[in-house]
């Protein structure tokens, strides 16, 4: 059709093949880096906002937060935790007083891994809120672990001493007992187990109650500074 055809049918030189691929790669690289750079701020902001909302939800009364990691036996404040480093979030109220920790945990559920975040007040030894971040539990049954308000409300004032126990629906009387969901016993137990395991893993690393790290003034410049 075009005068090029005969040249194309002839064997093109190796140089031309490599050159074509290189140019294609170059253009694609530029396009990808361009879109990456232009969407990155939005994506980071979205993620940060989601995290803040989840932390504020599991720790009622909290208006400010910071990431905390355990290094050399001390709980230190970081702005950006390292990859794969276990992290908890410290929640603080308007005046900068420590309220509690928001602790992320994950473990096997009925279908796939369940990831959750729960609020923990060390002084009283109470879990004060729980939010499922990620799960693929069965719709209509296992997904009640976040859709059933009654079940979620079980975690509003739950003692972790000595540990949380899941019991049959309606049988829970002690402050450390959770009523399981009928038809989703395994998912309910999985949630309880994940919280217990996370709690056990952090128990040694958290400082004694009252010695939590103070809030580091955020760059936005808050109103009430720490004590």
């Amino acid at each position, binding site marked *: 059709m075009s005068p090029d055809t005969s040249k194309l049918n002839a064997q093109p030189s190796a140089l031309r093949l490599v050159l*074509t*691929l290189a140019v294609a790669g170059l253009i*694609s690289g530029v396009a*990808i880096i361009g879109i990456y750079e232009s969407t990155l701020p939005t994506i980071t902001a*979205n993620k940060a906002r*989601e995290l803040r909302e989840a932390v504020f939800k599991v720790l009622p009364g909290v208006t400010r937060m910071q990431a905390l990691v355990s290094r050399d036996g001390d709980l230190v404040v970081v702005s950006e935790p390292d990859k794969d480093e276990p992290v908890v979030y410290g929640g603080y109220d308007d005046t900068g007083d420590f309220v509690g920790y928001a602790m992320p945990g994950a473990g096997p559920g009925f279908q796939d891994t369940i990831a959750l975040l729960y609020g923990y007040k060390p002084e009283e030894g109470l879990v004060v809120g729980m939010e499922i971040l990620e799960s693929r539990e069965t719709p209509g049954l296992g997904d009640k672990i976040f859709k059933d308000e009654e079940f979620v409300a079980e975690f509003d004032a739950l003692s972790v001493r000595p540990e949380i126990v899941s019991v049959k629906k309606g049988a829970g009387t002690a402050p450390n007992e959770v009523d399981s969901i009928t038809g989703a016993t395994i998912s309910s137990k999985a949630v309880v187990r994940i919280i217990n395991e996370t709690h056990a893993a952090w128990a040694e690393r958290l400082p004694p109650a009252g010695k939590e790290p103070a809030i580091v003034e955020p760059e936005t410049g808050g109103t009430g500074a720490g004590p």
Partner: protein
Amino acid sequence: MKKNESYEEFLKGIWRDNPVFAQVLGMCPMLAVTNSAVNAIAMGMATMFVLVGSSFLVSTFRNVIPKQVRISCFIIIIATFVTIADYTLLALVPGVHKELGAFIPLIVANCLILGRQEAFASRYPTKLAVMDALGMACGFLVALFSLGAVREILGDGALFGVKLFGDSFEPWVIMILPPGGFLTLGVILLFFNWFKYKKDEFLDDVARAERSGADG
């Protein structure tokens, strides 16, 4: 004439050569993300963006790309578009992106897209190639949507998250679970077979009637 031709390329993808129902291509995303109508549409749109974009580029540069490295070039082009779609969705609609998860990058492996580049876009002028890609993508979108809508209605009693039935409706949960995907698509294909069978029967009847008419 020219206009009709490109119109034809567009229409064939929607019905006669529908990528899913007639060619049985692109099954992985087809089944994995169709547990709700919204997910199905998001997936269909992302695929459309990638398919139309790649077809346009491949067809425009079809005389520049040497035959020997064409597949590699196609894959680079497709992967670029997929990456762009991935980041755009993540920035604009993080909720939908979370639902679709790993299946957005997997658009790359959708045989429908590479197949269209090899079979059509690399041989025909840009305008026809884009029309063909649009048609195929629309056909794919229609297929995704019909499967997603059926599964959401039966499995959740809702469409686009709006409840259709009263509280007494007991959702047929299995339909939004993986087995439901296989079963629904199986039944839809069965319907297609039946339709084709009836059409052939009808054409046979017409032919026989014409023959006997000519005889008599």
